[in-house]
């Protein structure tokens, strides 16, 4: 009998301390030595959707009011809704039990389209500054905030969240095929700040702190 597994395109060599089976995913909840951050966390197993329609006002996905302007984000019911443009919003379920894809055809599951990861910690801006020219620290913008643009030369969606003085973070998605090189670039950039992989527990804790 074949062992039916879903696999993330990212693999960290570090030793896992706690692994949890979530559906067909084996999710690392914690690594043996995670340090104090900054952290890089694989979220590829978290459900994600693209919602596209010429009239988004008729939607309230997962009970969320879709933010009105491109770039604005809203985190409610564990789901982050990121307004991309007039007709499009990306929806990322960050924590909690997996939600099903809504019936309406305007939704497309993007879980396998992209790789999803988080970079958490004070150093996130210093790391980002080495890989992208986007102004993630623009004081005129409130968080959470969506950026669509290049990161390590690859087009990405990035959401900046958290308090700049506390533990700011960046959630990033890009084409799944780039996963390995993207992670390598981020780890290289984060080396001087002691960036290390962490598990989902650290991420859940951070999300809890966002509310």
């Amino acid at each position, binding site marked *: 009998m074949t062992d039916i597994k879903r696999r993330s395109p990212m693999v960290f060599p570090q030793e896992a301390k706690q692994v949890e089976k979530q559906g067909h995913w084996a999710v690392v909840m914690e690594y043996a030595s995670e340090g104090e951050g900054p952290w890089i966390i694989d979220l590829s197993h978290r459900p994600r959707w693209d919602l596209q329609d010429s009239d988004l006002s008729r939607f309230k996905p997962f009970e969320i009011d879709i933010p009105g302007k*491109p*770039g604005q984000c809203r985190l409610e019911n564990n789901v982050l809704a990121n307004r*991309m*443009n*007039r007709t499009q919003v990306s929806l990322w379920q960050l924590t909690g039990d997996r939600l099903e894809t809504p019936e309406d055809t305007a939704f497309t599951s993007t879980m396998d389209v992209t790789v999803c990861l988080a970079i958490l910690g004070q150093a996130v801006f210093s790391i980002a500054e080495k890989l992208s*020219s986007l102004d993630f620290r623009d004081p005129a913008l409130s968080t959470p905030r969506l*950026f*669509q*643009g*290049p990161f390590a030369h690859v*087009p990405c969606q990035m959401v900046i969240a958290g308090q700049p003085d506390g533990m700011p973070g960046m959630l990033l998605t890009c084409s799944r095929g780039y996963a390995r090189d993207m992670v390598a670039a981020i780890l290289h950039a984060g080396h001087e700040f002691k960036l290390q992989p962490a598990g989902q527990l650290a991420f859940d804790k951070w999300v809890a702190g966002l509310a």
Partner: protein
Amino acid sequence: MALTLTCPVCGKRNGYEFRYGGEDKGPKPDDFGSSPETWCDYVHMNRCVAGIQKEWWCHRDGCGVWFTTHRDTLKNLEME
């Protein structure tokens, strides 16, 4: 130079995030299919304006939108 362009969705960005889509020639003219010359005029011929022209751009590395903007080709700067 460092060209910047203003994406109607994402705002002002580095010009290298965009892809150029040609002079804005408007929709295909009525006589587009009538002769090789009218076809060629629309498809291949350019005015090559040395100055301000209206042109198409796509925010390729960002939100993907196609939009028009005015740019001064003598300065390689988008008009405010």
